[in-house]
Each structure stands twice: as C-alpha cells, then as structure tokens.
C-alpha cells in the first residue's frame, strides 16, 4: 500500500520534471489505491504545475520546460479524469477560450486551458485563428461565465476590440466578463477595448478569472 501523500508528491514531482511515463504510472497507482481522482489532479499534478509557473516567474524554467511539464500533467489527467465523481464538482464555471483570427500563437492559451481544467473549470477551447462569428456563436450556445481571448501579435490584437464590440452589439457583454492576454497586450489596452481583466501569463490568468467570478 502506497500512502496518499507519496502518490500526490510523485504526481507533483513528475509533472515538474516533465516525465510523462512516470506521471501515467503514478496516475494508475492513484486509482489502484482508491485515491480520489479529483484530489490526485488538484493536489498532485496541478500543485506541480503551480511550482512550474513559479519556476518560470523566477527565471529557472523556460517555455520548453513548461511544455514538457504540461504534457506530463495532461498524460496523468487523461487517466484520472474519467474517474472524477461528478457530484464532487459544484455548479461548473464555464470558460470559452480562443486565439483571435489571424493569430496562431496558442502556447499561452493552451497553458491557461490546462490550468483551468485542472482547477475544475469547464473549458470550451475554440483553438487558434478563431473568426469573430465563431466566438459569438459559441457564446450564444454555451452561455459561458467567462470569455478569455488572446493575441500574440501587434497586428492581430485589434481583433479583440472587434470581438468586444460585437458582444456589446449582440447584448451579450453585460452578462459576460472578458479577460484578455498575450505578450503585446497590457492592462491599459484591456481597459481601452472594454475588457474586464488582463493577465500577464497563464498562472495569473487563473487567479484573475477566480477574481472575476468572485471565487
């Protein structure tokens, strides 16, 4: 019998190291030992990912390390997710994410998605190069609690303004907090285009989204 502490510690450790194989192995061990799947994700993998974010902020980790860690975490989450007990989650918070049209830089958006899913959010990911109409239609259909969008180029960031304007035209904006991100964006830019929040990186995006919905 392996202790719960050891299992969680290993899930965290191998996420940080970006070791997919060990992450898969410890996810299986967690299930075999009747560890709650949600706890394994949140207190194991997501905890590790939080350390990864800290290491990035400190300049000890870089993008390759984050990607490898995210891959390892995803490998464990895939095994654990089907075993999450539905009633463990209270009313799910739905987030729609996408990178605006003309822009294919989605590393940051993908990290936000992984961190949000691991934190129990329900994420609809529209992917990259997403036309305005797709954002609007998905929002009408899914009625999300939050819209998150990003652009990595100075040439595509004005698209975010168009999307906010379209939301206003459709009468969807007042009910829907919008958060934006991406290297060339700023808090001033976010305010200027009528977005409600801005995050400088993936880990602060999760914190900012929690603040937006008051959780």
């Amino acid at each position: 019998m392996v202790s719960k502490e050891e299992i969680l510690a290993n899930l965290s450790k191998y996420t940080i190291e970006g070791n997919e194989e060990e992450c898969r192995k410890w996810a299986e061990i967690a299930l075999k030992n009747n560890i709650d799947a949600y706890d394994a994700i949140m207190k194991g993998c997501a905890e590790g990912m939080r350390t990864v974010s800290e290491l990035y902020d400190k300049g000890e980790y870089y993008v390759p390390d984050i990607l490898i860690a995210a891959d390892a975490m995803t490998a464990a989450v895939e095994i654990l997710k089907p075993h999450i007990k539905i009633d463990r989650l209270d009313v799910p918070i739905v987030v729609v994410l996408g990178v605006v049209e003309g822009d294919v830089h989605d590393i940051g958006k993908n990290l936000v998605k992984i961190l949000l899913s691991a934190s129990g959010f329900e994420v609809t990911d529209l992917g990259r190069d997403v036309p305005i109409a797709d954002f609007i239609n998905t929002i009408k259909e899914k009625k999300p609690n939050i819209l998150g969008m990003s652009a990595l180029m100075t040439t595509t960031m004005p698209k975010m303004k168009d999307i906010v304007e379209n939301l206003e035209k459709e009468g969807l904006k007042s009910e829907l907090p919008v958060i934006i991100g991406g290297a060339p964006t700023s808090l001033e830019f976010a305010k200027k285009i009528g977005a409600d929040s801005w995050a400088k990186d993936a880990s602060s995006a999760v914190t900012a989204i929690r603040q937006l919905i008051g959780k």
Partner: protein
Amino acid sequence: MTFKDEMTPYDRLITALDVKQPDDRVPVTPFNREWCARQAGYKFSEVMVNTEKYVYSQLYCAKKFGYDMVLDLLAVHAESEAMGSILKIPEDAPPFVEKPAVQDYKQDFPKLKIPNPSKDGRLPIILRGIERMKEACMGHMPVMGYVQACWRHTCMLRGTENAMRDIRKNPDELKKLIDIATESLIVYGEAVAEAGADLIWVSDPTSSGDMLSRKHFEDFILPYLKRQIKVLLKTGVKVFLHICGNVNDRLDLMVSTGVNAISVDEKVNLAHAKELIGKQVCIMGNISPSKTLLSGTVSDVENEAKIAIDKAAAGGGFVLASGCITPISMPPENVESLVRTAKTYGRYKK
C-alpha cells in the same frame, strides 16, 4: 523648428550602422510593412503576390513620411514555405504557417531540400522586389532585405511548440533540422544580398529570455546563428539582428555573432544596452509598436522617442526604430511624430 537634412538616408543609416555619428541627425526607421500596403490602398494579400504593388507601397510611404529605409516583403515565412510549410494567407493580414513541413522527423525530414531562391515558392517575388527597390532608390535610400534567423526558420518548419519540446525531447534531431535550416538561409541570404539589399534584417521572435534560457540559446541557437551571420557579412551587406522580447541577459551573445547592429523592443532598456554593447554595435529601437505607435497619442510618440534618443543617441551608433513590425492600423500622425522627433530632437550638435 525643423532642420534641413545634410546626408542622404543611405549615408546616414550606414554611418550609424558603422557605430559612427551621422553629420546631421539620428536615422529613423519604423518597420512598416502591412501599414504601407494599407496606406497605399492595397490589401496585404495583394502585395503578397504582386511585386509592383508591394514596392510602390514602400516607396510611397518612405517618401511621404520621410523616414530612412525601405523594406522588402519581410517576415512572411517565405523561406519555410519554400521548404514545404503551408501558409494561410488572410485577405488583409500577414500570413502564418498553418501546417509545418516537419510533422514527423522520420517521415518528413528526409524530404527537406534546400530551396533554389530563383525558383522556389515566393522567394523569386521577394528578390524581384528588392531589385526593383534598389533600382528605384538609386543609392539614395537604403533597401533592407529580410532573412529569418535560423531558429525562427526551424520553428516555422517544425511548429514553434514542437521545436520547443524538441529542445528537451529530441535534441539530436532538432539540431539536424536547425543545421539544414541554417544552410538554406545562407543560400537565400546570399541571393538577397545579390538582389541588391544594402542591409539585412535577421529576425527571431522566439529566442528571447521570455522563452528560452541563456543555456538553450548557447546550445541550440548561437553556433548556427554565428554561421549564418558570418556568411551574410561576407557578401558585404550590413546585418542587424532582432530578437523580440527580453534579451537583457543575452545582448553579449547577440553581439558575438559579429552583426553590425542589434534591434530591440521595449523590454530592453536602451541606456543599459548602450552602456553594455554601444561601443561594439549600433543599437536600433525601441518604440513600442502596440502601446505607443498604435494606441498612443502624437505626444506619447514624441515623448517616447525623445527618451530613446536621450538614452542611446549620444556619439552616434543609434537608429530610432520601432520595437518590431508596426500594426496595420497605426495612425499616420504617429509616424509623422516619430520622424519629426528624429529630425528635430535627434539633431546632432556640431
């Protein structure tokens, strides 16, 4: 009050690139590409296929706004497209790689060939544009050619995320890919020089300290970048290296490639750069394309340009430039403000 220019844009820029002080003022070179197309009334997808329209947009804007350089059809991933990466070309925005050439090393790597610049992809269109601008400028206005940095090309052949993963997961295969990317850029770079470029922009948005460690940079990029730049310099052109983002920890490595100038964005403090590397290379920068040139007022542009001049213009070896390519919807009066500030505040005292 404005002053009369005494040097030609060519002489002024080349003097600064030689880390000397121009006779009259600081050269000013916003990196205007799609912005020029829009000013001239074209969609970006039109100038992607029509050399004459692209050349016209460049000449028209440089003349109308009075800045010191024209640019070839830069940063459209043409080098990677010519090796098999598939582009998506929006109607009025720059293209991007939709499907990288090397999805799988085993299957796709052996198919890679070094392109023939006079035949493959849209490379001939770009080279023809350089020739046309060189003819039209007659040595008065410098013509800038563009060649991807080897790591940029690698990312556009492999997909940026996958290339980043490969640093840890497939370093040996990745190095083989960087190697052929570098070779192909040497061949293309020589063609750009031969077409008449006076200076070449070697650019890389994905190797700053925001993305890769100094050690990654030293192991996976620097040796190849040195090789690429060494050959470009041999053709007799000036070469400047641009890496987007925070490069404060690797300015010394960038200089070690032998380039004439380093171009930086707003994440680098120009005073710091001037002190650290200003005696060895010319510094170009660093007006924020989004915060200032796109979203700022005329006086915001003036203020930021003055600060840049105060920090880095003393003694020459400085070019007032945008931190990266400028946005399509940048207000024209902000370009006017940038140029006016170079022509007044950027005046060198005799």
